């Protein structure tokens, strides 16, 4: 759809598509269908040769002008087809009784190491709250989940409370995942989701925040947090 709009201005495009059936209907001018899940358009993270193979296959289509062109990249990548969600992971929950704020403290060193070793790369930062203040953010989420009339003093101006809960929860998830990358470098995909949702008190807290949001009628925000 976007590709068509750009192509119509006179600029040739080539698109990576994840859902072949949609590409067949929408008909972007040139499409490389890849058999990877959402979030993995070029296959595997930290695998430049694999990414390059996909990228070269796509750019190679730019010389084809009998549009629509739909080519297929058939080599599989590593990510599993379906993401493990909270409800499935928590069905066999083990020990989630800790304090998420203490988990934040325990994971901070790992998180900071991840960021240091990756030239500052991090997906933490949407809420505007520095990670050093995440213990306070946890207290805010706990108060909200407990049904208190919670406000967070340092929320950025103009951000609605429900939106802030969303951004804050996402920052905490990213903090936990990136800490886990350096704590357990060999864990991927389902292992990470299972750990977060079934073994951490933070996973449990975010599921509780989602439940309270749903009770308040914010089903959409709840669905975006944990399902």
């Amino acid at each position: 759809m976007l590709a068509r709009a750009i192509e119509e201005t006179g600029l040739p495009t080539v698109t990576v598509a994840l859902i072949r059936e949609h590409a067949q209907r929408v008909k972007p001018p040139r499409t490389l269908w890849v058999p990877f899940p959402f979030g993995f358009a070029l296959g595997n993270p930290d695998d430049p040769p694999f990414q390059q193979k996909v990228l070269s296959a796509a750019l190679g289509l730019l010389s084809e002008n009998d549009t629509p062109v739909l080519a297929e990249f058939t080599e599989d990548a590593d990510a599993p087809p379906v993401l493990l969600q909270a409800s499935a992971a928590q069905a066999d929950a083990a020990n989630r009784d800790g304090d998420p704020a203490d988990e934040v403290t325990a994971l901070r060193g790992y998180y900071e190491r991840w960021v240091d070793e990756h030239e500052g790369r991090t997906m933490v930062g949407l809420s505007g709250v520095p990670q050093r203040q995440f213990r306070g953010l946890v207290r805010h989420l706990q108060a909200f989940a407990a049904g208190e009339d919670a406000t967070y003093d340092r929320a950025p101006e103009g951000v609605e409370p429900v939106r802030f809960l969303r951004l804050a929860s996402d920052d905490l998830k990213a903090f936990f995942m990136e800490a886990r990358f350096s704590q357990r470098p060999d864990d991927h995909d389902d292992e990470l989701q299972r750990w977060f949702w079934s073994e951490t008190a933070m996973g449990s807290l975010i599921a509780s925040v989602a439940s309270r949001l749903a009770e308040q009628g914010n089903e959409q925000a709840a669905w975006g947090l944990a399902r």
Partner: protein
Amino acid sequence: MPRLEDLPDLTRQGMLNFPAFDHDDAPCAVMSKPLTEAKIALVTTAGLHLRDDTPFSGGDQTYRVIPSSTPASGIIQSHMSIGFDRTGIMRDVNVTFPIDRLREMAERGEIGSVTENYYSFMGAQRSPRRIEEETGPEVGRLLLEEGADAAFLTPT
């Protein structure tokens, strides 16, 4: 996406039912030079943007500019859906937005160069009329003004 026939029913139906807009044919603009001389642009719908830019919200049909010289550490994602696994992008943004790969291709002479700016939209749009009619064409025109010869588009 994995072949839909390999997915559980519910997931497969969710994919098939997501609005897609049918067309009978496709527009075609022809690239005027070989890839090795072409200036390539990167455009994504993965909800990425500069760290200090305004996060996208669901259904947001505006775009964000990401200069192609931005280090991977300067990019953050506000497409927070848990419909997909974000850990790949957390590990390496190139898995969706190959900013380093394109730079390397230009250094090796496999493409001519990259545009000064890349562009990013929010994904999972159910009714993207404004992108189709206004912001999408605007990005096309901006890229042509920058001298782009082709654009590479990536999804979430």
